[in-house]
């Protein structure tokens, strides 16, 4: 049986699927990652900066948030002005970290993933787009995007 296992490992590494997902199936319940990825609670203010920053999150390339001070916000992805009304923190966490685990055809890139990727640029091999803490910061920012916040 050992020989089969070795063969399987060889073939898997040949097709670049050697890494297990950073988000294990145990961490997912339904369409959410309920537990935060870090011990440090996400910071919504840092999250907003990441959301806009060209160098880091750059979420506004594809998404818009009303009232955010950033010109030319994209519309390839959904409008996130009130995304907190639709999704809780756990659902946002999965959608940012690795939504393709539950919806393989999703356009949304996986920001906390290193497994099963192809032709990755040399500078990014084995790296996630965002750190776990950055994911938590953006989750904190987006979970606050609620209609009630504007009414208050």
């Amino acid at each position, binding site marked *: 049986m050992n020989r089969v296992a070795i063969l399987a490992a060889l073939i898997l590494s040949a097709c670049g699927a050697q890494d297990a997902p950073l988000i294990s199936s145990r961490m997912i319940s339904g369409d959410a990652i309920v537990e935060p990825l870090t011990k440090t609670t996400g910071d919504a203010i840092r999250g907003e900066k990441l959301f806009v920053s060209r160098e880091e999150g750059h979420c*506004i390339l594809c998404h818009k948030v009303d009232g955010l001070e950033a010109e030319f916000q994209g519309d390839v992805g959904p409008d996130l002005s009130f995304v907190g009304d639709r999704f809780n923190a756990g659902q946002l966490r999965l959608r940012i970290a690795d939504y393709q685990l539950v919806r393989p055809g999703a356009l949304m890139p996986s920001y906390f993933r290193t497994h099963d990727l192809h032709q990755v*640029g040399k*500078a990014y091999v084995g790296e996630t787009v965002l750190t776990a803490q950055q994911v938590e910061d953006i989750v904190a920012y987006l979970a606050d995007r609620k209609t009630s916040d504007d009414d208050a």
Partner: protein
Amino acid sequence: MIRLAGLVSITLITACSATTEVSDVPELAAEDIVSASVFLNSETRALQEDTFANPGYLWVDRGEALFSQPPAAGPACITCHEKGLRGVAATYPAYDENIGQVLNLEGRINQCRVTQQSEPAWTFESDELLSITAYVANQSLGEPISVDVNGPARAVYEVGRDYFQTRRGQFNLSCQQCHTENWGKRLRGDTLSQGHGNGFPAYRLEWESLGSLHRRLRDCDTGVRAEPLPYGDPLYVALELYLAERSKGISIETPGIRR
């Protein structure tokens, strides 16, 4: 034991290759196909159409001079192509029977340079190759793109289609997802085009220079954090053939102005 191992490996190989989804992917509807120049603002589009102001014509003019200038050993291009090459660029990439390969326009020009002119091939993105390619492509200005993807070019076309439809890079995005499934939407200040190559070599405002389609493809791959392929790579030539077939009916705009 051996049979079991064989079965495992076949299953795993199938699982691996399943990452390329080829069947049932949407294609551009024929009535929707538009050049990227449609998404330019009116001033930039006017700049493209003004042959005096369009900076790409600096390269076209240099290409015209090179076309009639004899190299050290062989004849000038114009000696054989005295009537010019109107319409030719609209049929490229094309299969070359003599070498049994699909060549893009740059490859065809270099092939001529080596075999007919006894000169070394020009390097990709050299001013000479850009200039002469722009000049030859510009002779097909307004000609509808019409490449042959049947016969010997078919397999290459399919390789290009696979490249287009395969997710890649750290962002795990395919060309297809942006340029077939989401064209027209806003990517910050830009509009996602349909990804046609009909303006190339094109003067890209971001480059402040004329550049080849392969340079543009490298930028796209870099954008999804994939490792870009070398200039002239057969995979990019295959992709170029797929793109040209996908652009059927829209016309050559070289030198296009692009953002």
